[in-house]
Every structure is written in structure tokens, then in C-alpha cells.
């Protein structure tokens, strides 16, 4: 029964990208693609949970449930790579424009918007999340969540000695 639950969990996962694409195209909201991805995850997890309940797995559902979470996390990572992947974007610039030098790649990054645009885009994201606030050309860590996230990230980088990050 437990094996059947795992197999159903894996089989249903094939529908995640399909439903995600359908949502984006039907609602015509590509800018909301990340939000829609989480909606799809919620639908997927509810569906598999109903299946586990029907299979009367009880606490054993923790195994297949963990598998469903793995699937969502892997999909999230792949989609994030597509939307914001730095190396992938560099490869696309080179493929679209032919051989070029580093400074030319920087200038053509993000459809010709340049590298500074990429940093601005990241700043916009953390501002929208309420972690920082931009005022008169200055950026300030705005909230307790921002302070906690910043301190935790620094502590973690110190703990496993991985340098400043972000490169």
C-alpha cells in the first residue's frame, strides 16, 4: 500500500508543469507565474493527501508526503533556474548573439538591460517582500524579518565558511 502511494505521488507529479502552464496561459498572467506555481503545489498536496486518506495509510503517509514535498521543491528549483538562472541567462546571451567578450555579455544580459538591471531586479524583489526600503537613493533593511534573515545568512556563511556569497 505504501509503495502504491509513492507511485501515485510520482505519477501525479507529471501534472504539475502541465497545470502550471495551463494556469499561466488561461489566466494570461506570466508575471504571476511564481504565485501560480504555489497554487499548483497546494492543489497537488491536497490531492495526494486525499489519496493517502483513502488508502488508509495513517501516520505512514509521512513517507509519500515527504516525496510530494521533494517533488515540489525540485520543481521550484528548476522553475527558479528558468526565471532567474544566472548561468542559463549567460548561455542564452551567447547563443543568441554569437561569440563575445565578458564586457559585451554584461551589456547584453537580460535582453540588453545589462547587469545593473539584474541587481535592481533583486532589490525590487526584496523590497516587495518588505525586507528593505528604498528612499532617496538609499536602501535600508526595513523590518525585523530583514534583520533576522540577514543575520541568519551571515551566521550560516560563517559556520560553513563559504565566503560572502552572491557570485
Amino acid at each position, binding site marked *: 500500500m505504501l509503495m502504491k502511494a509513492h507511485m501515485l505521488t510520482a505519477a501525479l507529479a507529471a501534472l504539475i508543469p502541465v497545470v502550471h502552464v495551463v494556469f499561466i496561459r488561461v489566466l494570461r498572467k506570466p508575471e504571476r507565474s511564481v504565485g501560480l506555481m504555489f497554487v499548483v503545489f497546494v492543489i497537488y498536496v491536497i490531492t495526494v493527501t486525499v489519496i493517502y486518506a483513502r488508502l488508509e495509510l495513517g501516520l505512514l503517509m509521512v513517507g509519500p508526503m515527504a516525496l510530494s514535498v521533494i517533488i515540489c521543491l525540485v520543481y521550484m528549483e528548476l522553475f527558479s533556474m528558468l526565471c532567474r538562472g544566472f548561468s542559463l541567462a549567460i548561455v542564452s546571451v551567447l547563443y543568441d548573439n554569437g561569440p563575445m567578450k*565578458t564586457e559585451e555579455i554584461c551589456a547584453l544580459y537580460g535582453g540588453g538591460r545589462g*547587469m545593473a538591471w539584474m*541587481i535592481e531586479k533583486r532589490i525590487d524583489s526584496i523590497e516587495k517582500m518588505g525586507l528593505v526600503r528604498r528612499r532617496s*537613493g538609499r536602501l*535600508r*533593511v526595513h523590518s525585523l524579518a530583514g534583520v533576522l534573515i540577514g543575520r541568519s545568512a551571515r551566521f550560516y556563511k560563517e559556520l560553513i565558511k563559504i565566503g560572502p*556569497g552572491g557570485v
Partner: protein
Amino acid sequence: MAAILYTLLAMGQFVLFFGVHAVIWRRINTSDPKLKLLMIVAVLSFVISALGLLVVGIPLDADMVLLISLPVFGCLLVFYLHLYVGVLKSVSLRIIGDLILKEERADTILAILNDFSLEHMVQTRLDLMVVNGWLRDQASSYECLPKAKRMALFNAFLKKIYSLKVTG
């Protein structure tokens, strides 16, 4: 009850993995992700801890290890990988982390842009892709090799499917 025990086993295995990983990474002191090494540490932590329990006489049900402990361990590992790669590569986290250290936890946008050395960021990735056989470096001019061309085509296809116009 068995589900709880095998979930706890997976959590213990993850703690072992994290401990070994932290000790090794503190010794090698690198900003390179070293994902292959991380995966080897994860697999060895899982397998050796399970075998260790069998050796000391604690009976384990192989089916439960595979169908409960393994996915729970995998779930914790994938969560951790998100955190690890996120902290290592995330520009957003780097910005917040740097701002925390500044006076009044603030800085000008221009100074933030200068801190990053944008060309260095691109150069780091280019060097890595040359080493991994994705790009060819000819007199500091970079060109896609077949593997990169296939990836660029697949990327363009996915962007079209998902209706994503500008990425990166």
C-alpha cells in the same frame, strides 16, 4: 509508531549529514558549491548510519527505511540544498547580509552596485562553464559548445511554453 521511529531515524541521519558536511566545509573553506561532494556526504551519512544501527543490533525493516526514512531524509536534504545554494548564490541575501553590517543598516544603491563587481560575477560563471565543457574561451571571447547550444534551445522553448519574456 513505526512511522514515527523511521521519521526520527531520518532526522538523525540528516543531523549526522549536516555535522559531517559542516566539519568538511570548515576545513576546505571554499566558495565553490561542491555539490558532488555534498551528495557523496549525504549518501554515505544515510547508508553508514543505517548499516551502523544494524551492526549494533538494532533491527531495521528495509521496506520502512526505503519508503519512510529515505523520502523524509531526501525531503530534509532538498530543503537544505535550497538553503545552501540560495545562501551561496543569492544576490538578494548578499545585499541584505551586507546592509546589516553597515551603519544604520543602509547604503546607497550606487555603493551596492559597486560592491558587486558585476563583471567579476559574470567572469566567475564563464570560467566555471569553460571548465565544465559548456563554453570555449578563444582569446577572451566566449562561444557556446554543443551542450550549451542544446541548453539554450531548451531554455528558449521553456520560456515560450511558460510565456516568460525576460529572464535572468
